[in-house]
């Protein structure tokens, strides 16, 4: 079995400032990896480099494609990379507005991604859109409403449906529960956990919320100043942190 994603020494600078430096890891099928660190630690830069939104200065991102095996994503042609991002990959943005088309109906938002991979039959597309809205707990009678008429939590669930409808194997998530009420967060976490298990998804989740990674991620990477300072099993890193920065991070969480 190949690793689904092999990340090798990914480095990105903004002039003199380090975005992320020498980040390497392997992600295996079915694994969820959390990336934590404070604002400016480089976790969002890393996610942008991994998910093809930004070109790193150095390094390699090797993805095990369905038909051609491991390929360097950075060396792919633009159409190849776009196809990969529409079919096998999904990107869930922190702000649903960045991942949704606000002027298109909820059903249209989900159907659009199906059409991008070749679905043409209107009835099938609509049926699959309704099915997916149901899976993310959006009632069928809201299918024709635009996302602008939805609450923040619903918009986030719609974004997830739009992303997962094509059956991707790898999902990148940037603060997926950020900006949501805690009660809405819990529901979203449960939904994501169920989907990860049922679809056998692998995921990279960037967040600053340690409670989210504890419940969602199998493995954890801690970043500071663009570098990975510690990595391991999530519960091991949180319960027995080795690096001074991780110890500070864990001991700074308010207990409720």
């Amino acid at each position, binding site marked *: 079995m190949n690793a689904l994603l092999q990340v090798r020494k990914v480095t990105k600078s903004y002039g003199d400032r380090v975005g992320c430096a020498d980040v390497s890891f392997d992600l*295996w099928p079915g*694994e969820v990896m959390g990336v934590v660190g404070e604002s400016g630690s480089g976790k969002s830069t890393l996610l942008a480099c991994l998910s093809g939104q930004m070109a790193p200065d150095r390094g390699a991102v090797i993805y095990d494609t369905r038909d051609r095996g491991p390929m360097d994503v950075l060396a792919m042609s633009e159409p190849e990379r776009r196809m990969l991002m529409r079919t096998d990959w999904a990107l869930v943005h922190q702000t649903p507005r960045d991942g949704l088309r606000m002027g298109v109906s909820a059903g249209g938002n989900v159907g659009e991604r199906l059409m991008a991979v070749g679905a043409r039959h209107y009835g099938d597309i609509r049926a699959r859109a309704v099915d997916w809205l149901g899976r993310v707990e959006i009632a069928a009678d809201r299918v024709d409403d635009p996302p602008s008429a939805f609450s923040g939590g619903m918009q986030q669930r719609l974004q997830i449906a739009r992303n997962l409808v094509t059956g991707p194997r790898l999902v990148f998530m940037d603060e997926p529960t950020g900006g949501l009420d805690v*009660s809405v967060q*819990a*529901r979203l*976490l*449960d939904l994501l*956990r169920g989907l990860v*298990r049922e679809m056998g998804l692998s995921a990279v989740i960037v967040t600053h919320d340690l409670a989210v990674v*504890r*419940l969602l991620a*199998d*493995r954890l990477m801690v970043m500071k100043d663009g570098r990975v300072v510690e990595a*391991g*099993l999530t*519960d*091991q890193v949180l*319960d*027995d942190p*080795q*690096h*001074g920065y991780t*110890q*500070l991070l864990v*001991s700074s969480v308010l207990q409720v």
Partner: protein
Amino acid sequence: MIEVEGLGKRFVLHNQGGAVIEVMAGAHLRVGRGECVALTGASGAGKSTLMRMIHGNYRATEGRIEVAGVDVAGAEPREIIKLRRERLGHVSQFLRVVPRVPAREVVAEPLLALGVARDQALGRAEALLKRLNIPEALWDLSPTTFSGGEQQRVNIARGFVHDFPVLLLDEPTASLDPGNREVVLSLIEEAKARGAAILGIFHDAEARARVCDREVDVGAFTPARGAA
């Protein structure tokens, strides 16, 4: 099934002047199939620390830990994840779950993670909840709202829902009434009978005497303080 040799643990507190705390040295034990071994020793002797290292939750500073053929101290995270999913069960003292997930789902989850069909997993979860006297009216509610004793029984059900070949039990009978305590002790006896290797912490001396074949005094592995 569990083999521990020359195991040591040291905590280094980087934000407290790099204080070094030696908590364990030269720990060793073995647990075979169908055997239940109790960890004993005063509070603070390191019983939980040892259990956590065997579970892969704490890193070993030195020494060897082998569980069901996996070198826990040196394994990659994904090997530990696989070990925990398939072979190493753990009943902790506290239930940690996603809020709002119903009790029956919480209990069925280890089976669902193994790919067991949903109906079958939920059926087995329900049978265990029933056996542990969790009223049916609570099955669809999140255990975060349950009493301490109920949460603990949900935790136990979750630990026994899959026939793990190795089980770690941290105070499985604490805060249980006599009826439920009896159920838990029978679950342990049944697990032994099917060949599970069990390592546990039991403050309840009577329970320990009934289900445990041997005791290991963790106090013997406590390093002399100040010697380090």
